[in-house]
């Protein structure tokens, strides 16, 4: 029902309010499977020429890993409405679990266990904080993240007392006996994983869960009286998003070969937020766009490397204030303008640029 409102452009009373939060995601038709293919093809074409260049391809790999984490953040934060400052911590949980289990059990099993551990922890956290709203959830998630980083830094299992939580020499990913040893090979592996993640996410976007989540965000009282448990959809989405975070952590650990607790601190979660908001919080594609944009930004900022933190934080501030719909929102707005002009008539009323 909400979906059809969106398509015809009649403003449901709740839509305006939700739109003010950052814009509702667009309707997901079947054509979004095509979008997945296009996005993957673009990345593949851009990356294929660079697989020989160790440095360039490692930037691609970082962006692919970050995309998985920010798509997860989109589900937890934008759809689920949960302030997931724990996203970097879940990356750490995935990274450490998988790195520790791989030598004995192999990559696939270790990665699987890592995802299950993260999913269980995420569900427990969401369950524990199920009544905590907005800021309270944010603060609880930050407390969880701080605990996780302290665990990485101090636990014997994560080489805390001896190595400060640094793990070295993590094996590159290997599936069914084939090892993705070079950065170029890892690129294709990461691209395949991102493809699976995007397909799964489109499935989820087309499922009733998304419609429930949107309804919960827009008109919580009404959804409750219609038999939708607002907490359940939020908890499910948070768990899915955090598990994607853990998957990103697994990918990061095995493609870099080394991990340290600093890579999973709250500040890193803020960077993931920056990616999502820059790319456009309105859809999962925003996560991918933002991840690629922000991974390349330092390449251009290299002359002013020391200013990185300042630039990033001011960029985040400016994005929130000036471009609440990010890159994808801006593109959609332009497309709408062009379509509007071609029709030469009335606007369809769909304002993606709030």
């Amino acid at each position: 029902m909400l979906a059809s409102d969106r398509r015809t452009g009649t403003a449901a009373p709740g839509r305006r309010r939700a739109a003010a939060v950052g814009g509702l995601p667009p309707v997901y038709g079947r054509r979004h499977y095509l979008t997945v293919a296009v996005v993957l093809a673009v990345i593949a074409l851009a990356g294929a020429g660079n697989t020989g260049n160790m440095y360039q391809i490692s930037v691609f790999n970082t962006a692919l890993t970050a995309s998985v984490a920010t798509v997860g953040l989109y589900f937890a934060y934008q759809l689920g409405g949960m302030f997931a400052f724990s996203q970097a911590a879940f990356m750490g949980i995935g990274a450490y679990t998988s790195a520790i289990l791989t030598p004995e059990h192999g990559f696939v099993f270790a990665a699987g266990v890592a995802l299950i551990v993260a999913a269980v922890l995420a569900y427990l956290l969401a369950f524990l904080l199920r009544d905590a709203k907005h800021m309270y959830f944010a603060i609880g998630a930050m407390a969880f993240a701080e605990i996780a980083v302290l665990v990485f830094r101090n636990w014997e299992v994560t080489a805390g007392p001896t190595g400060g939580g640094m793990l070295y020499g993590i094996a590159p990913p290997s599936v069914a006996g084939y090892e993705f040893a070079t950065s170029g090979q890892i690129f294709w592996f990461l691209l395949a994983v991102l493809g699976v993640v995007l397909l799964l996410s489109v499935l989820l976007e087309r499922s009733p869960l998304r419609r429930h989540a949107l309804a919960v965000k827009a008109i919580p009282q009404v959804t409750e009286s219609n038999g939708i448990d607002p907490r359940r959809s939020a908890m499910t989405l948070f768990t899915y998003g955090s598990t994607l975070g853990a998957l990103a952590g697994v990918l990061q650990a095995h493609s870099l070969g080394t991990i340290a607790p600093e890579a999973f601190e709250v500040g890193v979660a803020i960077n993931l937020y920056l990616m999502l908001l820059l790319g456009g919080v309105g859809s999962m594609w925003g996560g991918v766009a933002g991840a690629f944009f922000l991974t390349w930004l330092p390449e251009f900022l290299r002359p002013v490397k020391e200013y990185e933190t300042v630039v990033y934080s001011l960029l985040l501030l400016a994005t929130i204030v000036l471009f609440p719909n990010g890159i994808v929102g801006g593109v959609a707005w332009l497309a709408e303008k062009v379509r509007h002009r071609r029709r030469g008539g009335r606007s369809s009323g769909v304002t993606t640029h709030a």
Partner: protein
Amino acid sequence: MSNFVALLFSGLTLGAIYTLVSLGIVILYKATGIVNAAQFGLVGLGAYLAFWASTDLGLPLVAAYLLSIAVMALVGVGLERLAYAPLRSRPVDSVFLSTLAGGFAFVGLIVLWYDAEPRSLASPFGLETVEILGAPVPKHSLFVIVVCAIAVAALSWAFNRTRMGRQVRALAFDRDAARLQGIPVNRLSIITFALASAMAGLAGTLLGPVAALTPEMGLSPMLFAFGAAIIGGFGRFGGVVAGAVLLGLVEQFGGGYISTNWREVFPFAAMLLIIAFRPEGLFGGEARARL
């Protein structure tokens, strides 16, 4: 026994520092309705300002502390004008994110100004200690506790007895009604930003001699301050003070009796449990903040 007393005083010291950060957050929330997550950057900035004034300018420590607090009050005014004013009409979670980003901007500025290497700030009392019940207690700890007690007393007097305090309480009670009554919302917003920022700066300078100076030194104290504010129900000062002291004591006693390395885990775990099971705070009474 002497171990107990030493831990008690270091816990109270941390509690006092968390109280200052937390009360800054609470009065700002009451006067403007926003939760300021930039507070941790301000804690760090205050500490580095005092460090700069005492080492680079060569001022005596007490003067350096006072200079830092004064500059921080001005920073608060600037923050209100530049960062808060354009966000006034935004939804509460965007504001939270942007203040957090603002905090990291301060961290970045500190890194540019000095670097990320840890430094140490001296206390006006140096490393002197006094013997209390057989335990050597640093004079700096007593100094922190006294300063904090004075600040809390002054603040609660101002809050409960002055005209401005009544206006802020009216704003916290019902923003729209208060505005209609002609309460100067803008002026109060600037004043409380200055006050909260000065308190964060004071907390930073007092924290300097206890912990090392790093650009992100304010992050855990701010999170504990959020915890204290929640324990106190974002309301009465007494509850906030009790929450801050509770978290400080949990950190020190947990660290002292269970495990030093895991020291910070205990207050974070306590916070998590309180948000989960008693989100209205431990003391009931005032209604949960509308966040």
